[in-house]
């Protein structure tokens, strides 16, 4: 007789996954083919119209531009800085904990609260960033063309100039995110057996760089897979900061109009559930494809111990 006990073990998890994950995604998928607007009694089927809009309108072109700029700046930098900080802290004896705390502090603070602080700091005339820069005027710093221009015309509006906005936001994203990766890498570093370093040294790996290339980096493979995946998903999800800086419009000339904000603007602010759902579906597709690609690329060369 066959036992159905296994159904009872996986049943609750399966049920919850369907109800809180698969079902809503299915509903969003269905809504994305309609023109449903909140408060209306019904909705009409519009076929692929919403998707055609996403891939043809200039607004959505800006959305993809902003999202990819953010992701491709923030992911490499947070991973690189996280690894760098972890290695430095790992090599320290006594002050390690002190630096760990400092680098981890931005992660613990709520990003939305930090956004308000940054807004003050980057205020064009009374913020401390620009007032500090102004103090450098009249010194040798003016030899740098950009700096001299800033002294003559005023330093940039970091958050509302369309040439700077997305990079400023990405900078804050890096500042906020790399401490988290550092902690993950620190955990990865402690699990590397000391013997491997000794063996490498016996085999002639004298310099620190050789030890890193031959032992540390390959042994951190599994950690890197995890860190890159998490960073990718987290930077695709960036929303709170954009909402705090630019409650209306997604930045100067929509230069910081990231996907999450677009979903929120269409679906929640403007009640246009159809197009909001369509962006959500595209978003989910992107995250899935990117995750698959990077798993393939990285996992093939990862040694699990």
């Amino acid at each position, binding site marked *: 007789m066959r036992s159905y006990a296994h159904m009872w073990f996986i049943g609750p998890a399966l049920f919850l996954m369907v109800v809180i994950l698969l079902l809503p995604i299915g509903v969003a998928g269905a809504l994305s083919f309609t023109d449903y607007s*909140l408060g209306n009694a019904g909705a009409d089927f519009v076929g692929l119209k919403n998707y055609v809009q996403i891939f043809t309108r200039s*607004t959505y072109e800006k959305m993809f531009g902003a999202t990819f700029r953010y992701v491709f700046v923030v992911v490499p930098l947070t991973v690189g800085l996280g690894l760098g900080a972890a290695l430095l802290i790992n090599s320290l004896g006594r002050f390690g904990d002190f630096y760990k705390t400092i680098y981890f502090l931005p992660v613990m603070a709520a990003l939305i609260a930090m956004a308000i602080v940054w807004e003050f700091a980057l*205020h*064009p*005339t009374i913020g401390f960033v620009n007032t500090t820069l102004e103090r450098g005027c009249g010194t040798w710093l003016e030899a740098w063309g950009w700096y001299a221009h800033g002294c003559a015309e005023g330093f940039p509006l970091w958050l*509302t*100039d369309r040439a700077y906005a997305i990079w400023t936001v990405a900078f804050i994203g890096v500042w906020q995110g790399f401490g988290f990766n550092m902690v993950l890498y620190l955990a990865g570093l402690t699990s590397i057996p000391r013997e491997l370093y000794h063996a490498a040294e016996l085999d002639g790996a004298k310099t620190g760089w050789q030890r890193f290339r031959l032992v540390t980096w390959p042994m951190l493979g599994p950690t890197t897979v995890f860190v890159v995946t998490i960073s990718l998903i987290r930077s695709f999800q960036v929303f709170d900061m954009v909402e705090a800086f*630019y409650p209306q419009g997604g930045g100067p000339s929509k230069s910081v109009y990231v996907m999450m904000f677009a979903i929120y603007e269409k679906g929640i602010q*403007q009640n246009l559930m159809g197009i909001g759902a369509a962006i959500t579906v595209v978003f989910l597709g992107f995250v899935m494809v990117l995750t698959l690609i990077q798993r393939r690329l990285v996992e093939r060369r990862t040694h699990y111990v």
Partner: protein
Amino acid sequence: MKNTLTAMVFALSATAGFAGDKVVIEFAYPYSHLFDVTYEKIMPMFNAKYPDIEVKMRATYESYEDASNTILREAVAGELPDVTMQGLNRQSVLVEKGIAKSLEPFITKEADFAKDGYHPAMLSLSTFGEDVYGLPFSISLPVGYYNMDLMAKAGIDSTDKLPKTWDEVIAACGALKEAGVDVPMFWGWNITGNWFLQALMWSQDKPTVMGTDFTLDEAEGLVALNTMNDLFSGCEMPNYDLKTAMSSFSAGEIPMYFWSTSAVGTVERSKADFNFVTNEYPGLTADGPMGLPAGGNAAMLVSQSDDPAVLDAAWKWLKFITSGEGAAEVARTTGYMPPNQAANEIILKAFYAENPNKATAVRQLPLLRDWQAYPGDNGLAATQVIYDGIEGIVTGEYGDMQELQEDLSEEVQDLLPSGS
């Protein structure tokens, strides 16, 4: 255990009995930083007059857009309050979707409605078809804010020398720049609902929306866009956000600031030590604007209750806050004007004499026109498209106004229901 239960049952039945004596109505309003003070003043007066009505405040709305959204969501969920405050340009959505109730049945029962100070020009802001759906509560108009200490650097040392046209504003900008003022002017293009674009359209006596036709594609539209372009480039206006602009003016860094009169109270409370004056909004010609859009909000009845006692209580609250002493508190606590003739001309006469900065908007009252909504489900999306377009002028993304006019008109017209 048993005793606790009994006590709880008693407590519950007691509150139920208490609520039975009083009629409870629920109410929600936007912009707590502007209006909290106002309702704190109104509430005790209302409670004294109607001790058997209890007004329960819901969480405030962040903005007019949020107010509109919240009501739409609550309508779907069946959790509407009894009375809500909505932006003047967001009333039509609720009327179209059948959420707001007509106030005509209540108005016909009132004997002295006109005498209470509700005059037709103001009620027309909330009239849809033949019926009145809202009672305007606070009205604002665009005005010029000036820092006279800085204006003196351009040789403008008295109120009657202040610019009357946008060309004069640009000329003043040039003079101020030469005198070493970095940011001579900020113009509130980013106020909610494309208010300042509509101000330039009404200045030429042209509505921005006629039926389902977006009129930016006509000659007046190009004049409006060109005026903005000349202003932004002539004054080298930076792309400040709302908060930065206001804090910079209050800190005494910007000499000319064009904004809604609603913030006069806030600026007077928070400004640095300089001589602050408001004056009439400039026009395209020396005669000044031919019309200006009314900002502000109106009280609407959205109750789902069938109980006549609740509806009657909601009407009493509506009427109380929009007339007489209730309405007068609006002017005393904010920069808004009460849309009530009696309150403006009788109760507040002395107040405006003492507060000339708040009286500028009152002098402009004859210019009052509708703050227009973009009809249909895409109303908020249309607002955003125009916002993005104007921002493009500020950031210098668009240089050719004719091209921008074509693009914007086409894109917005696409979002509006086809002319049926």
